[in-house]
């Protein structure tokens, strides 16, 4: 199965590639980091209810709705994303989403353990260290594929996450910030230093090899391009359309 280690890519590409693979019906694993921050909305969420759209617009933070459920998240370059895309008909993948999460996340848990952290899988889709979430995950059916996307939180901007979520008042925002700090941790916080991304990627690839019987390294061809020059203007959040 193909693996694409893309390093740092544009924020939009950090979401576009796995959607594209799934719609093309091509199995693969993508590892990447987004070059710049953005907010990613769950498929079933109401943007106006969940996100401070005016703040995003002021700050020039783009917003993307993924075709994966779950909640709004603040994503940036301090997170290493893994994006598994598999053919739905492949008998290796269990029908139940819970079992699918468990199967795909086992190598992620192993990777964290190899770094010396007491990581564990918490159903449905969290990975915890010391009772705190260190990796967020979501699964979806896109095209003829099942997809699992998630990240290693190497470092995390708690302030921005608390700013971008829509809350009824500022007191509530303080509570969100405090609760995030209490319930979400990072590799930097646990290890005392930022991990080496290349090592993290290499460990995850080795640990996940048995899922697919081996990875075959692929690059993006020239036609697939990495420039991102033709993408729509990222900051153009059309509030007038949304409201």
């Amino acid at each position, binding site marked *: 199965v193909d693996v694409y280690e893309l390093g740092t890519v544009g924020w939009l590409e950090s979401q576009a590639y796995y959607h594209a693979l799934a719609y093309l019906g091509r199995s693969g694993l993508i590892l990447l980091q987004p070059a710049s921050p953005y907010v990613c909305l769950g498929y079933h969420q109401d943007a106006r209810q969940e996100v401070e759209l005016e703040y995003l617009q002021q700050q020039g933070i783009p917003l993307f709705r993924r075709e994966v459920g779950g909640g*709004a998240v603040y994503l940036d370059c301090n997170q290493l994303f893994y994006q598994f895309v598999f053919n739905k008909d492949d008998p290796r993948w269990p029908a139940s*989403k819970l079992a699918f999460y468990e199967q795909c996340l086992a190598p992620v848990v192993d990777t964290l353990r190899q770094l010396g952290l007491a990581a564990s899988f918490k159903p449905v889709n969290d990975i915890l260290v010391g009772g705190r979430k260190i990796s967020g995950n979501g699964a979806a*059916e896109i095209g003829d594929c099942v997809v699992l996307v998630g990240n290693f939180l190497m470092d995390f901007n708690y302030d921005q996450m608390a700013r971008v979520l829509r809350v009824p008042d500022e007191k509530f925002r303080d509570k969100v910030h405090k609760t995030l700090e209490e319930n979400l941790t990072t590799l930097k916080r646990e290890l005392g230093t930022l991990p080496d991304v290349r090592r993290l990627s290499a460990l995850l690839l080795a640990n996940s090899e048995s899922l697919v019987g081996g990875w075959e390294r692929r690059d993006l061809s020239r036609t697939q391009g990495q420039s991102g020059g033709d993408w729509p203007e990222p900051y153009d959040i059309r509030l007038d359309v949304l409201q």
Partner: protein
Amino acid sequence: VRARRARQVKIAEGVYVVERVVKLTGGLVRLAAVVRDDRLHDAYLSGDFFFYPAEALVGLENDLEGAPAEAVGLQARIQAYFNAHRVEAPGISPADLAQVLAA
């Protein structure tokens, strides 16, 4: 159903625009709908949950158009929809949704 917030605006006798927010184990579910003569119209469900297949959520909203806003009947109707479309919604049962949707 763990917590519930509800708001409704009366438009005319027997016509209400309702909003309900419920925290279920599968996530937060928001409903916006019109209830006219105790029947559901224009139901719109959103939230941070997972629903497979994703497009079946809109299908469910359409299926509920005009349904009596009453929990027992709604639960049966939602269950039938889940079965027919092989819906998988971890932590969100037809009974939960019926509670959210019932007037």
